[in-house]
């Protein structure tokens, strides 16, 4: 057995352990979930501070005896706010400046835009009027954009302000989050306000931009002023000398239903208003992003420090910082939650795939009857495949909100094409001479389909199903962006926190799951393959099968 095979075996063992570990606690949890009120759904956007505030909100609510459901890491501002509007989540941490520009698409006169009070007053009123959502009083700190450069870049080009950056811009490459590139208070605004025109702009995932900057792959990035990583990499934050960025005060943004029906939750969340200063937040972010401490521990310490909770969670007390563990030990320490996520992942894939088979096989058969429509319809399904998953998920939100439903629909759409094409091609190409003879001997069209063409097409249809299954296992990792859970959760969170091991704790089981699902479907394929094909191919396949099974 070679090294690769051994690693695969360990991975399989890990996955099995996850599955076993995941089932039992999930059952136990369900049994004890007898708290009467519906849980408050607390969410976040996919970057470190948002995760931490989400956990803080959640623990605060729990400390007041309220049931909480966590939906951290929703893909972007549109997704998170869309979820607030549709009632799919109840609360998430947002920033007033973001509310002003990215949610309301408003602008205030420069003097007012720099005034935290004026911005808060405006967004509170406008958000309530237009969307019925409510901003709770700000938490007490601002987290504005911090355009940052390396120290040596600052020294070389004499960069201290954004005006300096605009002057040196043509020589510099920006590494910016997609969010920032697209927002009116992002790159477009900087171009307008400062005349900034960088040599190039590279879109980067939030968790990667600091590493990219430190490695010299880019020259400046859009950080957040409270990011722990600003200090870790010893970066220079450029001064917004023309006062372009509005005030970005952090606050809890609350959906209509929670604001109306749950005064207990509102009262609890309001306890945080004005209590978190910038220094406290930066230190807390640093513990999570730089030191790799468990977010739950940091959030609990914050609550205890603020006198909002006296209770320590004994189960978490001994949790070592993530950085202190080796990869194997880390994976072992997260086997229970990963097991749960793996089950959920599998469930998402299974449901989406089953629904796709139910629709795409009859569709493929129908297209064989109406050949003229085949290429247009299959072409359209093929185009769906080319839409990036995250874009497809965002399109779903206005229709289906966030959570499991839009994720299932998106996965279902991805799975349709390979199955429909496999069915169409399989039935169209099924041994034409045999099909003709069956017709000439008096089989009806229906009999030919069920007794001849489908059995002959089965291997090709199954190949389509297997392709769809592997695609779906991969695409389902992105379902985490819209709060559907699954193995994408640690991937998204890990990317946001630049935590490679957390990313691997989702990615490795997802890869193993893809192999397992494909293998399981290969067995199904053997069962539906007509005996004559099995018996001819057995001789050829057996040796390769034997190799395959010994290495997994």
């Amino acid at each position, binding site marked *: 057995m070679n090294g690769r095979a051994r690693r695969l075996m360990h991975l399989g063992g890990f996955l099995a352990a996850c599955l076993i570990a995941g089932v039992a606690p999930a059952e136990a949890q369900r049994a004890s979930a007898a708290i009467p009120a519906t849980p408050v759904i607390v969410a976040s956007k996919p970057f470190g501070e948002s995760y931490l505030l989400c956990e803080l909100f959640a623990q605060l609510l729990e400390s007041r005896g309220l049931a909480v459901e966590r939906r951290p890491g929703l893909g972007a501002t549109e997704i998170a706010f869309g979820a607030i509007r549709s009632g799919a989540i109840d609360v998430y941490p947002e920033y007033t400046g973001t509310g002003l520009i990215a949610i309301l698409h408003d602008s205030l006169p420069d003097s007012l835009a720099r005034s935290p009070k004026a911005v808060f007053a405006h967004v509170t009123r406008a958000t309530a009027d237009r969307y019925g959502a409510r901003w709770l009083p700000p938490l007490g700190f601002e987290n504005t954009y911090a355009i940052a450069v390396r120290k040596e870049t600052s020294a070389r080009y004499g960069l201290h302000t954004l005006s300096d950056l605009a002057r040196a811009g043509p020589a510099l490459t920006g590494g910016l989050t997609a969010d920032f590139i697209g927002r009116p208070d992002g790159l477009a605004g900087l171009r307008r306000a400062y005349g900034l025109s960088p040599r190039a702009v590279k879109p980067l995932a939030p968790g990667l931009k600091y590493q990219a900057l430190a490695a010299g792959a880019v020259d400046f990035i859009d950080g957040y002023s409270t990011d722990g990583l600003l200090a870790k990499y010893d970066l220079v934050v450029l001064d917004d000398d023309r006062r372009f960025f509005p005030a970005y005060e952090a606050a809890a943004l609350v959906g209509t239903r929670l604001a109306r029906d749950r005064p207990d939750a509102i009262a609890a969340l309001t306890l945080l208003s004005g209590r978190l200063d910038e220094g406290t937040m930066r230190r807390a972010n640093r513990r999570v992003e730089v030191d790799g401490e468990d977010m739950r521990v940091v959030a609990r310490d914050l609550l205890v420090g603020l006198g909002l909770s006296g209770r320590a969670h004994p189960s978490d007390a001994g949790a070592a910082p993530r950085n202190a563990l080796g990869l194997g030990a880390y994976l072992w320490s997260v086997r229970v939650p990963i097991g749960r996520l793996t089950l959920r992942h599998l469930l998402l894939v299974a449901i989406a795939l089953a629904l796709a088979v139910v629709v795409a096989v009859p569709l493929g058969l129908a297209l064989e009857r109406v050949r003229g429509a085949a290429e247009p319809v299959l072409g359209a399904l093929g185009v769906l495949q080319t839409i990036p998953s995250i874009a497809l998920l965002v399109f779903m939100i206005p229709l289906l909100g966030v959570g499991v439903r839009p994720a299932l629909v998106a996965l279902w759409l991805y799975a349709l094409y390979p199955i429909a094409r496999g069915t169409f091609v399989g039935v169209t190409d099924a*041994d034409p*001479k045999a099909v*003709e003879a069956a017709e*000439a001997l*008096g089989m009806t069209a229906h009999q030919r389909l069920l007794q001849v063409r489908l059995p002959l097409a089965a291997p090709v249809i199954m190949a389509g199903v297997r392709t769809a299954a592997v695609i779906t296992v991969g695409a389902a990792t992105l379902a985490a962006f819209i709060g559907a859970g699954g193995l994408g959760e640690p991937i998204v969170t890990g990317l946001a926190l630049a935590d490679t091991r957390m990313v691997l704790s989702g990615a490795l089981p997802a890869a193993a799951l893809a192999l397992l699902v494909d293998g399981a479907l290969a067995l199904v394929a053997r069962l539906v393959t007509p005996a004559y094909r099995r018996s001819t191919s057995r001789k050829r396949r057996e040796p390769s099968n034997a190799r395959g099974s010994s290495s997994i």
Partner: protein
Amino acid sequence: MTDEVVAPLSKAGGTASAPAALRASGVVHTFGASGARALDAVDFEAPAGACVALVGESGSGKTTLLRCFNRMVEPRAGVITVDGRDVRDLPVETLRRTMGYVPQDGGLLPHWTVRRNAGLVPRLLGLDDVEQRVDEALALAGLAPAVYGSRYPHELSGGQRQRVALARAVAARPPAILLDEPFGALDAISRADLQSAFEELRRATGVTTLLVTHDLAEAARLGDWLVVMRAGRVEQRGSFSELRHSPATAYVQTLVERTLAGLARLEESA
């Protein structure tokens, strides 16, 4: 193998349909937009119980004419009758189940065993002695049911596959069978074997047979009557002897001479 047991039909249970008379009158068919005539006012008749061989080159229209009898081709004009009855008066599947059919390559269903293939038409007809008919038909075609019944088509030789196709065509004891170059794709030895098996089968069943072939020698050996076709028209009808001694056209004369010359060369070299 060719001389395996041939069970006479009379011994078998169930009923065999009486051989049917087949007739085509004024049949015209065109293919495609060009309107080229594949069949041009064809008249011909196969008396009940006869084996009529349709002979001609590729594109002469012989296969098209054959396929008019099971309505795999619907001619543009003219009438096709079976025992005087227009084939269009029957539901198409009903008609086809009474017309045995053997295409050139057998057209066996690759995912079915020999038994299941041979029993196709009796099962479609809902007959209650399917297994018995399969045994009988396989024996007629020169295949021992116990040996070959559970095999799949890919496990057979080309000649054995054609035997299964023959068995499938006669298992329901139809009044007529349609054979489209059934021996065309075989090597010379299998071909001679299968031709003998076919003659035995004909003797045992007396089923009316339309046999399409491009080989005049084969037509002469197997057919009671020959119909020579060329470019969608019938050149001549008659026995081989009639064709030889009073050819109706120069084409028929050439065809006969060439065939005889070939046989003569064979004779000399032997």
